[in-house]
């Protein structure tokens, strides 16, 4: 009996699990559950403090400072709509990257652009980086216009909330680049689906969080 166990374990190298799911897949879902509460706390605080700032600049309304300087509403919705679109497209690229790895070698994927996992991983990372570029531009222009993290409640909550999201995107881009380098080095195969799948779950989650932030912070006045 014991030797049979040894034989099976060393050869199959897949561990039995109660649900049939890989451990890491269960863990990433638990992690995402936790992240939900993290962003829920950030977003709630933003909403609680909405309209409570004593001094400007404000997100949606102009503000005249005591010395007579007029500040425009600070949020630039057209520009952020572009970056939102970019981030949404990155999720599409992520889906294609996962499909390319999962279906490696299957008809329709061999030799076609759909099967090019390196392209789609690179595209996802690039779109994520572009989003971060937009955010860097947004942050610097806000600072130039007179809104820093210390200016008022809006500044504190806005920069902390979007900054936390940006940090998550940054971590995601690093993750994607790591996957890309593995793909370049040895080639990701259908056996590596879980590696890409975990990153994809995380990436889509971060994307969904942005949809909430974009709606609640930018679109609703």
């Amino acid at each position: 009996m014991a030797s049979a166990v040894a034989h099976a374990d060393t050869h199959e190298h897949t561990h039995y699990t109660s649900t049939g799911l890989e451990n890491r897949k269960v863990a990433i879902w638990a992690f995402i559950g936790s992240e939900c509460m993290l962003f829920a706390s950030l977003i709630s605080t933003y909403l609680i403090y909405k309209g409570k700032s004593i001094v400007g600049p404000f997100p949606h309304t102009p503000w005249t400072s005591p010395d007579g300087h007029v500040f425009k509403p600070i949020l630039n919705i057209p520009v952020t709509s572009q970056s939102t679109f970019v981030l949404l497209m990155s999720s599409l690229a992520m889906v294609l990257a996962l499909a390319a790895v999962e279906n490696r070698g299957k008809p329709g994927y061999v030799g076609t652009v759909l099967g090019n996992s390196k392209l789609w991983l690179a595209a996802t990372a690039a779109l994520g980086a572009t989003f971060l570029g937009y955010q860097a531009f947004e942050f610097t222009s806000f600072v130039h216009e007179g809104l820093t993290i210390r200016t008022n409640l809006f500044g504190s909550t806005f920069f902390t909330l979007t900054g936390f999201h940006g940090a998550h995107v940054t971590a995601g881009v690093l993750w994607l680049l790591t996957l890309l380098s593995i793909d370049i080095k040895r080639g990701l195969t259908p056996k590596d689906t879980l590696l890409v799948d975990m990153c994809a779950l995380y990436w889509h989650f971060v994307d969904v969080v942005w949809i909430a932030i974009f709606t609640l912070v930018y679109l609703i006045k």
Partner: protein
Amino acid sequence: MATTAATPTFAPHTAASYGQTGIWSWITTVDHKRIGALYLYTALFFFLFGGLEAGLIRWQLAQPNQHIVSAEFYNQLFTMHGTTMIFLAIMPLSAAFFNFLIPLQIGARDVAFPRLNAFSYWVYVLGGTFMTLPIFFNSAPNGGWFGYAPLSTLPYSSGLNIDFWVMGLQILGISSLAAAFNFITTIINMRAPGMTLMRMPMFTWMSFVVQFLLVLAFPVITIALVFLLFDRFFGTNFYEIAAGADPLLWQHLFWIFGHPEVYILILPAFGLVSEILPTFSRKPLFGYNVMVYSGIMIGFLAFGVWAHHMFAVGMGATADTVFALTTMLIGIPTGVKIFNWIATMWGGQIRFTAAMKFAIGLIALFTIGGISGVMHSSPPADLQQTDTYFIVAHFHYVLFGGSIMGIFAGIYYYYPKITGRYMNETLGTWHFWSTFVAMNLTFFPMHFSGMLGMPRRIYTYDAGQGWDTFNMISSIGAGLLILATLFFVVNFLKSRKSGAVASGDAWGAGTLEWSIPSPPPDYNFAEIPVVTSRYPLWDLKHPERTAGIAHSAPDVMTITGAHATPVHEETGHKTAAELGIPMPFNTVKPAIAALAIVMMFGGLIFMHVGHFAVAMTITISSACLFVGTLYAWLTSPLE
């Protein structure tokens, strides 16, 4: 295969027998049992440390107008007593049991992520040290364990004290979250064939609920602390009233975390007691299903009662009413548990071991704390009791009378499984009765001093307010409590070498962890058992006890890839190599990653002593070290 009659009773496997000795093996270990032992020793050390802090507090309060310690140091003492007991003693003592027991109870060879488990421990011990050391330099956290902002913001707390607290809790949160992801995955995914959710031992069930509380509650305190950290270090306005901030923001965020935290502290003890009572009553747990549901119910309601900590701030009649009702509601599943424990003992052939005495002690003392808890669920009553010693009495009955009694019960019960030797029952009985008496002597008079209006957190008081006698009694009780704990310390240390040798099934229990040797071999189960009922070992040895509970035929043996056999008592004579069981490699990377995390947060402290460049250098280089170690960790094979 199933017989143990001819096997010697001494422990067949010790650390030495598989080459795991020396301090380096402890730093690099990824074995859940050894990590559990590390948690146990470290948390017991912090428990004693926090107890000595309480001793100083009670010495200071023994008589009116004393100046044993300064008012400033008193603030540090009560802050660190609470913080230490909650985050560095009770939670990690529970974690010691999570680590040691969960894989054994569900029939697994380790946790889902052994290295992450080691990481959790190292973050805990380094973060705990980081937060504890400042008390020797008179700069320990001094804002209470709840750290209310704006009091804890820079204008009102300008020293480094609060910085150590913010950073320390942030670090400890990482440890708890990493552990929670690990145990959720372990429980969901690594149960032996046939170990359905509704067959899991009650300790595993309560731990399962606790992991969800951790996963959902800790991010909230993380964010509250991030706000405080940003306010203190980067000049943001989250708690800056002059900038329009809401003075209740911290309280809400803190208690949305803080109340589930209370159940994080008590549910593991409930779980332990639910293991001990059936074994020593020689009866299955009464109303298992209801016990599970009430545990889940407590966990669920835990998120809906936070504002009962805030009745005094004036939230209005509607909010007060809602939170009063939810708080009363949570008393129901808790009461159900108490009645089910009593019904478990009812008609049983009870063995009054030390573990059993502590378990019954929990039922009695927790009930007292539970009843005073229901008392201040009513806002008008609470307004009289809030911030008085009545509250101190209440939460010490649930935390000492509940959590600590349950944990002591667990230690006496599982010591033979962990070490292969029993603790001394005579000393254990002395420990129990002296603790029981001293505990009541300490905390019961606080009900009266509180009702007579004595406020919490004052460092001294004037004579003649009716508090003197009660305080003197409490202080005598606290002194006795420290002496009572010495029985435990002596017993714990002595039994390690000279305790009676325990067999695998040390107490005649029914659950899986007792089917393997004591201490368990590194691989736990030579053959993964197929479980067919809630008390598989009793099915084997005392089928009459389990005749009334649900069983299934062991047809699950055919599950592909499970390679399982029926439950049997294992002898553990073979090594993992002989059995061909792949074991994870020891690695130091989790400890290095933990060190990097602690330095990353700790480095920021230098900002407040005027060394911005030093702070940034330490923090950024530690962050790089962390990322580098993480890559090295993830790219090296587990086994």
